[in-house]
């Protein structure tokens, strides 16, 4: 994931008083944190603000990082709790994974994306758009697994779930992503 000094080396520098060293950690993880946050907020302005808040929280609690887990896993735990708080504040309804209505709500939200779909045909944008159509729970677990390089054990730690529950959630989320891809991008997939 990274070159240069390790996360622990940077953290020990920051804890020794070299606050500027924290910039290297921000640079290293900003895209991961921002991508994950965007899955919850669904808009870039909020995602930017929440991501900034996450890095500030992480900085303030840096002395609590024990080094028993990866720094990224610890950081994504902060992302998870901060984003859940954000959603609560925004009074967005986070629905259960088994609730069929989740799909109906997501489907109704999809119309906004349709206009952009035609313009963005590249594989990558297509996948990101399909992920954006998922519920925050589904989008989060897919992002953690594929983009943020977290193992199922680490994901279970971040989300506060049993490993098997995380595995089931990931399988279901991927199933839903496949449905979205087939529903909205079937032509594009065939063209590729």
């Amino acid at each position: 994931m990274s070159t240069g000094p390790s996360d622990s080396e940077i953290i020990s520098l920051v804890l020794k008083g070299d606050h500027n060293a924290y910039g290297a950690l921000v640079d290293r993880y900003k895209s991961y944190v921002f991508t994950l946050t965007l899955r919850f907020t669904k808009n870039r302005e909020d995602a930017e603000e929440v991501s900034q808040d996450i890095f500030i929280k992480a900085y303030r609690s840096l002395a609590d990082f024990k080094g028993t887990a990866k720094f990224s896993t610890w950081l994504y735990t902060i992302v998870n709790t901060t984003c859940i708080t954000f959603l609560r504040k925004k009074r967005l309804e986070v629905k259960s994974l088994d609730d069929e209505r989740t799909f109906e709500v997501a489907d109704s939200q999809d119309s906004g994306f349709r206009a952009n779909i035609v313009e963005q045909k590249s594989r990558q944008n297509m996948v990101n758009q399909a992920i954006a159509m998922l519920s925050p729970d589904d989008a989060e677990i897919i992002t953690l697994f594929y983009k943020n390089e977290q193992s199922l054990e680490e994901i279970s730690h971040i989300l506060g779930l049993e490993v098997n529950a995380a595995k089931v959630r990931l399988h279901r989320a991927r199933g839903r992503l496949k449905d979205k891809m087939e529903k909205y991008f079937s032509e594009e997939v065939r063209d590729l």
Partner: protein
Amino acid sequence: MNADVNISLEDGGMEGRLWEYIDGSTSGEERSVIEKLIADNQQWREKYRELLELHQLVQTSPLEEPSMRFTKNVMEEIAKYHIAPATRTYIDKKIVWGIGIFFITLILGFLIYGFSQVNWNTDAGESRRIVDVTNVDYSKFFNNTYVNIFMGINVVLALMLLDRFLASKKKQIHKEA
């Protein structure tokens, strides 16, 4: 083999097993079974290709990027803050142990006093009990609601302390293993 395949398909297990195979989380034996299914069964092969394509698409999709000023904004913000001291440093271990020892001593004191009140001389004809705890007059100590609440809290604290001690021992054993 066909029967196995039919069961899996009915259970909706094909997709789950294929995802595990793609993720590399299957055991050696199961892996070879799935490989054989992919090779021999068209339905499995097609599903595998479909899932693998999705897997690769998601894997290669790029991360979203925040604004160019993002790091600068964060650094400007954190300049206003200090790193909070680690939570573990707030709590002096000596104080925790001191409180623990105090409560344990208190409980032990009560137990010792209680046992000292027991009539150890048993009458074989009257009772088969070795110790007659009925002779202990607990009402002397537990005749007040506040005392009872206090003792209840003591017991809970003692159990919590014991639990913490056993958990740390367990962790230590796991680390050594």
